[in-house]
């Protein structure tokens, strides 16, 4: 699964994307796995209310299932316009 990071999430984790091998059932499960890895992930995912997630380029909730998903992206609330 491709995992992408944008804005300060990218800066805290220190990379824009990575390939993650996971059996996580939901986004929340994936976040728990990532947080357990290293301090920089813990720092990026400390406050989920400050984060948004997209599954295959569509906004989703943190309890959404990951089955069949190829691309997960984490980022702060968007500031377009």
């Amino acid at each position: 699964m491709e995992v992408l990071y944008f804005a300060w999430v990218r800066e805290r984790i220190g990379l824009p994307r990575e390939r993650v091998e996971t059996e996580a059932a939901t986004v929340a499960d994936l976040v728990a796995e990532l947080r357990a890895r290293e301090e920089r992930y813990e720092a990026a995912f400390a406050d989920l209310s400050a984060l948004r997630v997209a599954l295959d380029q569509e906004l989703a909730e943190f309890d959404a299932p990951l089955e069949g998903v190829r691309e997960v992206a984490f980022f702060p609330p968007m500031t377009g316009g």
Partner: protein
Amino acid sequence: MRISVQTAPFDLGEEANAFAAGVAGAGAVVTFTGVVRDLPGGGLQAMEIEHYPGMTEKAIGDIAQQAAGRWSLADVLVIHRYGRLAPGAPIMMVATAAPHRKDAFEAAEYLMDYLKSRAPFWKKELTAEGADWVAAKDADEDALHRW
């Protein structure tokens, strides 16, 4: 409908004229242009805009389709830049054309409200002191509730 996500500057006047020429029978044309504003106390060196290639075009396309389904529109244009922009530089524009002014205005406001909070762009302000990500505003999220 034209959607462009680009680093290059755009010319408001040229874009507005080209858009209006394509919808001669429409009656009402509205444009909105967003420009990089300096910070309240001055000192903004640049604004850096990051986006999510692929999702950006998709999200803007969805927003424009929603608008087209909701109002009677002759055409819609969305241009949004990313990369490093100087103060005073144009960031983005939307244009809408409709038989009646109410549709053109409402659709343009709808596009702007959704672009603000639902299109994957992130802005960073660079000053002599460093760089700060622009925080999303509650008011921008609240603006979606009226639609």
